[in-house]
């Protein structure tokens, strides 16, 4: 009873906050700056900001109208440099997916090995500590130079940025499996491989998935920046292309969509985490 009423009240506050935000936004951009008088011939050559003192920032109504336009035809294709938002998001998600899956394939087995061997763990620690804090975009010039392909470079950047949280969490999860459980397995003469899969993996799974959840968030953050850099396709390219045209409306729409997709990706991983969590 109390939880439903709390939820209701929280929802209400959310709506009020949103309305307040939109209202302030609308009012803030509505005001027009003073306009210098100009000849009609001159005015015809100028933009609305200059002729009507219209704010360079679009209002919520402009954004909504434009968003509706995009939603109505999300998959149009006007050539290599102008595709619908649906297609652009598809490219970005595909890139993130590829880089992320590669990272999963590398990070989890490697993390297992490191976690199970105190020797490897100590030997590799300095490298991991050194590589972990490097901004993924700093890899970009190096990747472009060595891989010589911009789309693979973008995937590589995703790979390199999403590998660390997963690796570290796997190592941590594997290393901190309760000793009693491993000892019980040993007493029962369970083989190493079987022990890894039936005892350690389920025990470490929640920690590993937490790492994966952190990684997907980072990967999605980075893809936008990477695509702005290499261009071509993807939501990051869309932002850049619209910035190029100084179309703030489209940039705001892209920001909104990036947020929504990021949230969905996070929710999916959160659901997986809940599936493997166990009460102790």
């Amino acid at each position: 009873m109390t939880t439903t009423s709390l939820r209701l009240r929280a929802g209400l506050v959310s709506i009020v906050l949103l309305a307040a935000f939109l209202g302030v936004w609308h009012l803030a951009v509505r005001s027009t700056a003073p306009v210098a008088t100009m000849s009609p011939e001159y005015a015809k050559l100028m933009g609305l900001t200059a002729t009507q003192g219209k704010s360079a920032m679009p209002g919520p109504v402009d954004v909504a109208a434009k968003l509706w336009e995009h939603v109505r035809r999300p998959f149009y294709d006007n050539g290599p440099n102008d595709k619908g938002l649906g297609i652009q998001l598809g490219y970005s998600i595909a890139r993130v997916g590829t880089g992320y899956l590669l990272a999963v394939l590398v990070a989890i087995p490697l993390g297992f090995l490191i976690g199970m061997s105190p020797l490897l763990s100590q030997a590799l620690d300095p490298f991991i500590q050194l590589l972990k804090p490097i901004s993924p975009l700093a890899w970009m010039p190096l990747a472009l130079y060595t891989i010589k392909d911009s789309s693979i470079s973008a995937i590589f950047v995703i790979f390199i940025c999403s590998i660390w949280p997963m690796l570290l969490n796997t190592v941590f999860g594997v290393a901190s499996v309760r000793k009693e459980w491993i000892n019980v397995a040993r007493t029962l003469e369970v083989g190493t491989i079987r022990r890894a899969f039936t005892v350690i993996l389920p025990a470490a799974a929640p920690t590993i998935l937490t790492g994966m959840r952190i990684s997907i968030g980072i990967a999605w953050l980075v893809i936008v920046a990477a695509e702005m850099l290499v261009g071509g396709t993807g939501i990051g390219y869309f932002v850049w292309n619209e910035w190029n045209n100084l179309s703030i409306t489209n940039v705001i729409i892209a920001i909104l969509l990036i947020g929504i997709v990021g949230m969905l990706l996070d929710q999916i991983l959160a659901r997986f985490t809940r599936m493997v969590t166990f009460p102790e």
Partner: protein
Amino acid sequence: MSIFDNPFDPDRNLRAGCACGQHQSAAEHEQAIALRCDPVESEEKRYEGVVASAVMRAMFPQDAARRAFLKSVGASTALAALSQFFPLQTATEVFAQAGAPEKKDLKVGFIPITCATPIIMAAPLGFYAKHGLNVDVVKTAGWAVIRDKTINKEYDAAHMLAPMPLAISLGLGANAIPFAVPAIENINGQGIVLATKHKDKRDPKDWKGMKFAIPFDYSMHNYLLRYYLAEHGIDPDTDVQLRSVPPSEMVANLRADNIDGFLAPDNICQRAIYDGVGFMHLLSKEIWDGHPCCSFAASREFITTAPNSFAALTRAIVDATAYASKAENRKQIAEAIAPANYINAPVTVLEQVLTGTYADGLGGVKTDEKRVDFDPFPWQSFAVWMLTQMKRWGQIKGDVDYKAVAEQVYLATDTRKLMTEMGLAPPAGSYKSFAVMGKTFDPAKPEDYLAGFKIRKAS
């Protein structure tokens, strides 16, 4: 004027140097007419002209005999007689097709500015298709990226700033990889824009301490701005700050007050005015009328592995450039390149740049039809000038063989041959002298020219 005038015209001289007869030699004639592609009604007609000229020349080795023949029978009879025993039609078709391209599906990178007009418009207006190519023009985020993608062979050819192929070939800011320029994209087409708050500071002497943006270190924009400042006694290395900013970010930076002005390629200048954040201080044309701006570039490797594709590409670009050079086509071009797939800018802005009737940002409307112009010929003297400036500002250290580099990178000879085949009138020489802010540049004496500058980077 063109070598494609009617070969059946008895008054026309097919072989001697000057076509119009008013000049002693072809070179003089070329100097007299502006460097400009002659308007030609249609491709087929032009090729027909080339073939017919060749046939007439072969039939009448003596020009006097040809003239006498034409005078006596009349042009139409001559043409009819000629086509009886020589398949002019077929010969023209064969000629126009040239060698089949080794690679038909090509990728060409561009930066979304009006300098790229010929490269871009060749796609929607069908110039690539006409030369048997299927070209994807791909928008690229910045000059460094376009350089890397072309070096990595993601692009077969690309839109580059005119000095970039020189810099890449010399290994400045990149590994030395031989690049070549078969065609200049545009001449003029840049401008110095200042923030509106500086509208009373029109004298460059008052610009000390200001921050300016240029698109790239190896750009005509950089060299022209430095030249302009230095001529007014401002040392561009110590008195002002020059920042390399991608064109697309310049207007936003100017609005945010991060910079005081920029020397940018158009449509960026006009966009700043359109959005009411700046005004046009000076067109780059006023610094050097007819200066090169951007180029069409490809690696030597591409040229050797796919010579026919490269030739077809060059023909398409030269064709598009010739089309763009005509004032009456400019409005149509502005509409063709404005959509999001290409430049992605308001049509009004592109029209102002291309037609030359523009708002100056101070309440006036100005007209300058040559604000941006298109002329494909890659003058080697342009390359020599850029090399002198690279040396002047410390980008090149030590000695440089100006002529050798210019001739290796700027393919004037090949382009001349190609243009002649296409029925255009390329200039006879590859070097010409020109004046930058009243100071004459002699391409034969680059070191002397360089020594004449008081302000330069101490080496």
